[in-house]
């Protein structure tokens, strides 16, 4: 607790291995990440890149028996890896809380929304049930649920997808967590509802000064909400930097490839969308070198020998790549992608 600069989230060399199967799966392979107070970081990556696993590790939601976790996680000074029993459940929902991808599945179908939020509040605050209900109602209003009093007594299946996700956000914020974790909170929603939820989250974040880790596979969403973007591939953060740096001048070949696959309005019909050739590596059998080397046009021998270290390519902008000299775009060259 040395004053101003203590980050809200500080992850050091996090490794998560699932040991339940025939072969151990290295889902997260050495992640370093920190989030300052009031900052939003988007964790961007495709399915299986380890972004959700990283997020769930922060709440220690992986089954202890089938998971090996190494490294250090601190949330506002709390050593999360050392928490046990009551201290761990005290931390969940209060120290950090989570918005899930599919609120229909993440809410208990046989309890009303009000009961579920009140339950969370009573778990962490020493207040009366009626006081907790008032607090829940207050949150329903803040997430802009119409006729909130009535909606508190409805069941998840009685609400639309967008309303359910608003209720989920109210639940996550109900105990004023220091860190908000969002696991693809707009992915399961209709496109128009996605925008509304995104705007709501952004407004709440600004209003309350929330610190947030936002997992998504959608570059557009990441640009919309985040201050910084961390790109994940095969369990590692391959590039991290401000939204502007990562989108305008990506330096890791994977980020470059990812950005070039975005469809643009001006694309001629009949033309194929560009894709990154190949597929992500088997997490149970990772190559010794860079996990992206086998799909990378710039891969050299050095890439296949050892995993590349993070290279500082600009202020606060790092890429785990040995060929960053080749990926640097000459000043004034036309952008490969428009941000």
């Amino acid at each position, binding site marked *: 607790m040395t004053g101003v600069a203590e980050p809200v989230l500080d992850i050091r060399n996090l490794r998560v291995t699932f040991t339940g199967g025939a072969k151990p799966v290295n889902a997260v392979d050495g992640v370093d990440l920190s989030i300052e107070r009031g900052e939003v970081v988007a964790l961007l990556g495709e399915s299986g890149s380890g972004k959700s696993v990283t997020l*769930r590790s922060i*709440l220690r*939601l992986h089954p202890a028996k089938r998971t090996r976790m190494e490294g250090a996680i601190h949330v506002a000074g709390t050593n999360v890896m050392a928490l046990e029993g*009551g201290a761990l*459940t*005290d*931390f*969940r*929902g*209060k120290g950090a*809380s*989570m918005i*899930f991808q*599919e609120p229909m*599945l*993440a*809410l*208990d*179908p*046989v*309890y009303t929304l009000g009961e579920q939020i009140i*339950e*969370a509040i009573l*778990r*962490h605050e020493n207040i009366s049930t009626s006081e907790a209900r008032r607090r829940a109602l207050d949150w329903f209003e803040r997430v802009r649920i119409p006729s909130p009093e009535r909606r508190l007594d409805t*069941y998840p*299946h*009685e609400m639309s997808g967008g309303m359910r996700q608003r209720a989920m956000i109210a*639940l*996550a914020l109900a*105990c004023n967590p220091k860190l908000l974790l969002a696991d693809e909170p707009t992915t399961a929603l209709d496109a128009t509802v996605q925008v509304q939820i995104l705007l709501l989250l952004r407004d709440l974040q600004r209003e309350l000064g929330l610190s947030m880790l936002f997992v998504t596979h959608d570059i557009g969403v990441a640009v919309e909400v985040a201050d910084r973007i961390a790109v994940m591939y095969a369990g590692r953060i391959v590039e991290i930097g401000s939204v502007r740096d990562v989108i305008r001048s990506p330096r890791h070949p994977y980020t470059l490839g990812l950005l070039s696959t975005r469809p643009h309005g001006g694309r001629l019909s009949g033309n194929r969308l560009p894709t990154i050739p190949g597929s992500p590596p088997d997490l149970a059998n990772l190559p010794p070198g860079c996990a992206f080397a086998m799909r990378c046009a710039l891969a050299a021998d050095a890439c296949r020998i050892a995993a590349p270290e993070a290279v500082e390519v600009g202020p606060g902008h790092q890429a785990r790549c040995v060929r960053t000299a080749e990926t640097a775009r000459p000043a004034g060259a036309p952008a490969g992608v428009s941000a």
Partner: protein
Amino acid sequence: MFTYAAKRVLMTMPIMIGVSLVCFALVHLAPGDPLISVLPPDASQAIKDQLMVLYGFDRPYYEQFLRWLVRAVQGDLGTSIRTGRPVAAEIFKAVGNTLMIATLATFIGFVLGTFFGFVAGYFRGSWLDKLASAAAVFGVSVPHYWLGMILVIVFAVQLGWLPPTGAGPGGSEDWRWNWVHVQHLILPAVTMSVIPMGIIARTVRALVAEILSQEFIAGLRAKGLPELGVFRHVVKNVAPTSLAVMGIQLGYLLGGSILIETVFAWPGTGLLLNDAIFQRDLPLLQGTILVLALFFVALNLVVDVFQSALDPRIQRA
């Protein structure tokens, strides 16, 4: 909730009419002359005809059915051909006896089955799961008349702790709520309980495993609930289905297990049905089947209403 219950009650009406029709038809479709058991083999045709008229067997089927139905609605199920006593009274007494062991058996089965099911579901794949699952498989697959005999040999004959048969001392059929009578309940009820125990254990195990794998369990943990709090949610999610299964099991057991009631000479519906079939006692058979079927319908009704009270999604479905 109330409208759902009312709707559900109305829905049982056509079912009940259908049930009574099937009961009536079944007996008349079965081969054999219903009067054979009351008449001596050398009875004259005149006496046969006279009895046919007396019992109403000479009338057309639809008239017989309507007469029977109208009387049945008034609580008159006819007279037993064999004993000459009113069928309704015989059934009433047998149903009471069966109700006692069936309820006790379902209760034991539900408590043990739920326990084994939760243990197996929570510790899936461990030796505890294997042990509990083995108990469940034993419950559904052991021949219960055999189990009944084993229990009689061990607890009645060798240890002498409990009476082997009957519903009262010296074969008396006047039930009283005292230890002398209650101890007759234990062996048949325990024997009968292994079936619902096995079925409920397997159902609960599957339900618990399925619910634990759902995302909302992670959601509950993420908001800081301790394992006990999560367990409470699992219980409420498991309850509607397991109660439904319990209700259906109680329904089956109310039919009285012919085998178990025979082994223990328990004067319930199973034994009554058995006698009615073998002695071609038509009014008794019809009446017993009708009452049991209606019981089943009523029980399902109660279970459905209960279930909708516990699970809000059912009302809308």
